[in-house]
């Protein structure tokens, strides 16, 4: 017992160091990203361009280089970082709420619902705001459907949740196909198809705002609810007996999760596996307490997606869809997690 006490003390000393490391990693990742790309900009020029935003100075770089860094790379890095952070926070909260480390925004139906909402919005108009609004509404709707199918006598088993997610995702995928079927093939159809594939290639400051506002609001709500999410992760009965208004609390959190996920889908398409794998990885570093898990997952998710996008935009001349890379990395990790949990059960981390 003496030993574990010491270990406990060590852990709380280690924690600030962990966050300092994660912040440094994120800042370095972002800076690295600004310095690499298909168009060669020397690092000293990138540094100058960034510094000139703060101090007036005589440029030693070309206007093209400034444009590439300011108009292409900065919004792209911001978008990738925000999307990664948002998905990781949403995934952490979902896993807590459903008491299961193997749940992600995709499994719960939000992504496919948001995909349909977005496709429908493209069909109806060109407004980005309608796009994010419908993506949110349909993402929320899909989540309500998954939730009500999977819930029996007040309990949602993980198997029922996954099955309900498959059913609901299949349904909304079919609806997406319907929108493609009726879309004008000259302009609407390619717009829908490309939007669904998802990419940060068309990053702009307008899109950064589009994703930043919902991700920041949603993440703030979830962080404020970190303690309630802890309690919910014990199970509905216990949470209820502890005096938590279970349904209300859960729905506020789920709404925040849907807001984040649908904003990411609206701005960058469906990017799978980040919300599933990153929270799990973060939990291995911080333990399950959402007070530390949520900020850690946020920082790791942002760095992770920035690096994934670095590969997507620089590996070859063509853009590699981000979703392909996250799936290539995420699916095998998920498989390992499944095996591990099948061997040991949820409870023995």
């Amino acid at each position, binding site marked *: 017992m003496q030993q574990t006490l010491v270990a406990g003390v060590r852990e709380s000393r280690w924690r600030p160091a962990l966050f300092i490391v994660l912040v440094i990693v994120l800042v370095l990742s972002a800076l690295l990203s600004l310095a690499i790309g298909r168009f060669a900009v020397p690092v000293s020029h990138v540094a100058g361009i960034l510094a000139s935003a703060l101090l007036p100075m005589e440029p030693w770089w070309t206007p093209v280089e400034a444009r590439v860094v300011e108009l292409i790379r900065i919004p792209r890095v911001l978008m990738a970082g925000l999307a990664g952070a948002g998905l990781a926070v949403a995934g952490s909260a979902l896993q807590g709420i459903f008491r299961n480390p193997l749940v992600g925004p995709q499994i719960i139906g939000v992504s496919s619902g948001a995909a349909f909402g977005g496709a429908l919005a493209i069909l109806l108009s060109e407004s980005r705001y309608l796009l994010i609004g419908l993506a949110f509404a349909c993402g929320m709707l899909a989540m309500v459907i998954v939730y009500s199918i999977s819930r029996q006598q007040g309990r949602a088993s993980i198997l029922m949740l996954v099955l309900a997610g498959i059913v609901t995702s299949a349904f909304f995928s079919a609806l997406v196909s319907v929108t493609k079927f009726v879309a004008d093939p000259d302009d609407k159809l390619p717009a829908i198809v490309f939007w669904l594939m998802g990419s940060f290639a068309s990053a702009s400051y307008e899109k950064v705002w589009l994703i930043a506002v919902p991700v920041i609001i949603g993440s703030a709500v979830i962080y404020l609810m970190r*303690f309630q999410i802890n309690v919910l992760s014990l199970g509905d009965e216990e949470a209820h007996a502890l005096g938590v208004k279970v349904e209300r609390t859960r729905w506020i959190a789920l709404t925040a999760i849907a807001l984040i996920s649908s904003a990411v889908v609206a701005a960058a398409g469906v990017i799978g596996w980040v919300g599933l794998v990153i929270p799990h990885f973060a939990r291995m570093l911080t333990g399950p307490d959402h007070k530390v898990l949520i900020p850690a997952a946020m920082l790791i998710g942002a760095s992770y997606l920035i690096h994934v996008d670095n590969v997507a935009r620089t590996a070859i001349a063509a853009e590699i869809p981000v979703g392909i890379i996250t799936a290539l990395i995420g699916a095998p990790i998920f498989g390992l997690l499944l095996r591990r949990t099948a061997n040991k059960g949820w*409870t023995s981390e």
Partner: protein
Amino acid sequence: MIDVQDLGFRYGENRVFRDVSFSLAAGKIAAILGPNGRGKTTLLKSVVGLLKPDTGTASLGGRLGYVAQRAEIAFAYKVIDIVVMGRAAHVGMFRAPGPKDYQHARNALSLLGLSGFAEQHFNRLSGGERQLVMIARALASECQVLILDEPASALDFRNQDLVLSTLRRLAEDLGLAILMTTHFPQHAAHIADYALLLQSADDAQWGSSEEMLSEEKLELLFGLPVEKVQVQRGDKTHSGILPLFS
């Protein structure tokens, strides 16, 4: 502190119990006894409010602390994290527990002699320790009524003794009204002031422990003859209820 009137419950057409009435004062312990599947947990949940009874009312005269039967959690929380969750009702929707809440949690742990476990992982504790942590969590919520589902049934002898004597101490020192289920009459006889026997769906009997835990009533309840025995060890008399296995 606990006041139950004409409580009845059924799943669809299947009646589980009916006309259950009793009241329990502060500082007293009551045990609900019955064989497996008779509806002890259902009755407990109806009193707690987790299940909605079809007749009657159950009112609690103070803050409730509830300790469920299953003491496993999905995530590897530390003991202090678990115990501070007892403060959920005191902490708002968008707030986290403050220093005062952690103080309550630490006090509860020290009251149960668990101070050294605060930073340990809950799932690495023994069954008895887990049960005590759950009780500590209830105490952290500043409860006046403590309701427990089979708190000692799955434990070894030493841990049974630890949990039962702790409950007795809490009733006496803190004046908690404690309601628990058990299928071991021995446990009821050891600490309970009152007992509720779920003889059948239509017959629930309430009374003092001495009156309820007679050999006749217990034989009727469990369908097996029992014999009360007394053992003198030093200057202390231990009483036991011995099942006469076939």
